[in-house]
């Protein structure tokens, strides 16, 4: 391979992504998460077998960017819809892509019970500590003291409660086989995130049960920061509250070598 060929290869668009430019704000990590998922689906040769379930949030149009079949769920209901698809088509790979408002607030019931049933689906959970699409309101993941449009003086835990650590919560369920938290704030962590995405999909392909990858993400637009400041804020503020790690690895998943 010549150097020029290698260069083009490095920047090649994964086959599982469409040509359509995304509508995400500059620097938003939704784009990074999309790319990682697409790369893994390509590497595992799953494009034709994958069915995505989009949620309601900034990623509502995820189905425009991935070159495979999609359905689009009501706010929070993606894991229920995914259950319907997967039960009818058990040999397909069914993924949901959900924000923190979507999954950990309005959709908490659906995701918990999908996990409890051990639904053989994969949830990609984007935790950006606020409601992006509706303009930066408080999310169940908003940190204590964090300012949002609905916690203008900073989240007051006395009246607004505490952030939800979704990965830890779901990891307590017997039906969940692979539950981890990763972050998208630097190249090293992005590589680790990709590996987790791979393991989650391997879990599903091997019929081992429910998998969830929580990805700590940024929302520069609503955080009122530059992308670089946002990445730093994520590292300094989000990771201490939402520690990165493996919260549930089923012994059969631990055996998987990729």
């Amino acid at each position: 391979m010549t150097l020029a060929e290698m260069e083009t290869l490095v920047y090649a668009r994964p086959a599982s992504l469409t040509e359509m430019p995304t509508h995400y704000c500059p620097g938003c990590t939704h784009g990074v998460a999309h790319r990682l998922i697409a790369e893994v689906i390509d590497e595992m040769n799953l494009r034709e077998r994958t069915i995505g379930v989009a949620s309601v949030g900034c990623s509502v149009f995820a189905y425009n960017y991935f070159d495979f079949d999609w359905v689009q769920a009501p706010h929070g209901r993606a894991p229920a819809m995914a259950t319907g698809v997967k039960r009818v088509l058990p040999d397909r790979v069914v993924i949901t892509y959900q924000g923190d408002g979507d999954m950990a607030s309005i959709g908490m019931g659906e995701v918990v019970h999908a996990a409890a049933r051990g639904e053989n689906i994969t949830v990609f959970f984007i935790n950006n500590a606020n409601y992006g699409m509706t303009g930066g309101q408080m999310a169940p993941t908003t940190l204590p003291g964090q300012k949002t449009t609905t916690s203008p003086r900073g989240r007051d835990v006395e009246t607004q409660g505490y952030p939800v650590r979704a990965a830890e919560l779901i990891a307590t369920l017997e039906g969940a086989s692979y539950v981890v938290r990763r972050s998208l704030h630097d190249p090293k962590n992005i590589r680790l995130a990709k590996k987790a995405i791979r393991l989650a999909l391997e879990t599903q392909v091997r019929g081992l049960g429910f998998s969830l990858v929580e990805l700590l993400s940024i929302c520069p637009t609503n955080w009122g920061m530059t992308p670089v400041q946002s990445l730093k804020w994520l590292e300094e503020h989000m990771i201490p509250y939402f520690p990165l790690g493996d919260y549930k690895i089923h012994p059969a998943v631990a055996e998987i070598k990729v």
Partner: protein
Amino acid sequence: MARELWKGNIAIAEAAVRAGLEAYFGYPITPQTELLEYLAMRMPELGRVFVQAESELGAINMVYGAACTGVRVMTSSSSPGISLMMEGLSYIAGTEVPMVLVDVMRGGPGLGNIAPAQGDYNQIVHGGGHGDYRPIVLAPSNIQEAIDLTMLAFDLAEAYRAIAVVLLDGSLGQMMEPAEMPPMRPLKTTYPDWAVRGAIGRERRVLSSIYLDPPLEEEANLRILRRWQQIEANEVRYKGYYLEDARFVVVGFGTAGRVALSAVRAARAEGIPVGLFRPITVSPFPDQVLRQLADQVEGFLVVEMNTGQMLEDVLRAIEGHAPVEFFARLGGVMPLPEEVLDEIKRMTTAPLTMDGHPRERWLQRMLQPA
């Protein structure tokens, strides 16, 4: 096929199975629970999908996902559970995927009670979910009809990419009657060209109810409306009894229609020229037939187990061309044939009026017992 004794809820469940139901999702609620319990046994036995969902929210969205794959899907519930499904129903209508819903109505509003009622008429017929859509609503009044209409519901839902509802009340759900169950139909082996089943060797497909661009949403609304016009033109169903020489007509659907039929028969036995008009599709509503009847008869009596939700549709349909009276029992109280017979006699002997609203007159009568 022999006639056997079937209980309403179970007859509907088995009819759905024989219609080719491939996936069922539901949540317990009286008085429809036997349907869920029966399918919990029956579906896995046939290698088909049964999931007890965590809630009706979960159930309807599982139905939504399964419907997107192009197979025959169903859920069932009763009034409070149906309320919880409204969001999903609107999305399903907006995505134009077919499904069958069974609503075994109970007394309400709120938690109400578990006795038979017809209070869901408006929420089902006039769409409790947001946006512009209309479901096909089939209202059986006996077990055989419940079986036949359940089978039909799947065909209609598929033909029109619409929601088809089988609307009944708790008494029909619980009642045992001899009926003939049709033979098992084979499952589908081909799927519509919109079905999302994985992009194997074809372009990807997306099923969604979102049209961010208003002109595109307008187009989708028009498409749904045009399909509805076809449904109105082709699928109106009703049953008339003793209408040929009737000077008075009772109108009632489901169990109210069934009770009214007993009353009409008793009245006929006494020589009163009364008939019964029983809408089978309460949506699309049999407007035209009722409008024609209005020119032939001296008056209508609408009987319901709600405060006159269908009454408004009857009034709309007959456009003031005949006087209308109303009688109802509410909150899970069943109307008795004798009560309806008394109303028939009152209507056929006292002078009828076009003044005021039939509901008002009925309330007045309720307040000052004879």
